[in-house]
């Protein structure tokens, strides 16, 4: 993360241009479990993508492409939502 700005460097009113902001990695919130996928069972229903509170399911077009562990907080909702049991929580 960059050093803290001086008051002269701040944008007027605190407007943050989305493309210029750096997001903190909330993957550090996980407490020992992370989601893992068995692709042979994945049917690309995309429910895990929709339900993930941290937008941490990555897609390739409209195909499941993995988890973004930088942001996954380990809530297990994806594992619960997966209709085929393709997602399991495993030890880090």
């Amino acid at each position, binding site marked *: 993360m960059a050093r803290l*700005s001086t008051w002269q460097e701040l944008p007027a009113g*605190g407007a*943050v241009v*989305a493309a210029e*902001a*750096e*997001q*903190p*990695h*909330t993957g550090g*919130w996980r407490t020992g479990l992370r989601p893992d996928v068995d692709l042979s069972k994945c049917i690309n*229903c*995309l*429910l895990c*993508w*929709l*339900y*993930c*509170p*941290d*937008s*941490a399911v990555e*897609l390739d*077009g*409209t195909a499941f492409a993995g988890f*973004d562990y*930088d*942001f*996954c*907080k*380990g*809530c*297990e*909702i994806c*594992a*619960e*939502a997966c209709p085929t049991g393709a997602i399991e929580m495993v030890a880090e």
Partner: protein
Amino acid sequence: MSRLKTLVRNQRGVPPLRGGHSLCQGCGIPVVVRTVLGTIQSPAVVVNATGCLEVATTRYPTTAWNVPWLHVAFENAAAVASGVESAQRALRRRHALRPGEEVAVVVFAGDGGTYDIGLQALSGALERGHRFLFVCYDNEAYMNTGIQRSGATPFAASTTTSPAGLESFGKAQRRKDMTAIAIAHHVPYVAQAAAVHWHDLSRKVERAVAARGPAFLNVLTDCPLGWGHEPRLSAQVLNAAVESRFWPLYEVVDGRYRLTYEPERPVPIETWLGLQQRFAHLVTDGNRQLVDEIQEQVDAEWNALLDRCADDGTS
């Protein structure tokens, strides 16, 4: 193409809400936001009332929003949105905007910023007929400040300002029917939804943004911390709300009521109550009559809703 794939395509590779925010592990709010914004085809601007969503997503200098986003205060999101909507209208009239799609104005507010402190501004905006979508993510208490009771908190729920104890069974008052209040403003579209029925929510969003005037969506949203359940059980809890008819899914289009989901085999209210710590004090012999009272309230409201749907020839 499946609706979910359409939601993905609508993003054009840029998620409207990205990770890196500090909403709780398993928070029920993002799925509401993602479903709403993913459904809207046109560009959108978000006006956010103070609350969990706003605070957790925009700690300077970060932002989880890839859409234009505006926060002013707690009670005035609908008034701020009125200003944005009026500006767009004025600038279009003067040909001062690049030709193109109209930008959808979407408000996200919690139940506090809708039912209580936000009620006046919302009422005014609805009455004036601004073309905007107001989405209440209703998790039934002031969660951001530590789970205090709001006008949306259900009867007998335990919160930090209506705690259950020897002398109290939790909130002594029934919750407001905010959806009915919105309907009373004669706006083109009002609906109740829950993200666990995401397809139903998405279709409602489509109809809401197509309306030529204000649209109000009341979306039941779980809060693992405030409701007292494991985050991973979110869908199970919300399903219990819908299947027990505690939270009916319906829409009102130009004043005509239509039920959009009817549980085949309604479950008893204990199923809904028993899944959450905030109702744990009810599951004792001494409080049996409260559970019965809640069941009666739910049944009465459900039957009244069915009557309204029947009157409108939609059931």
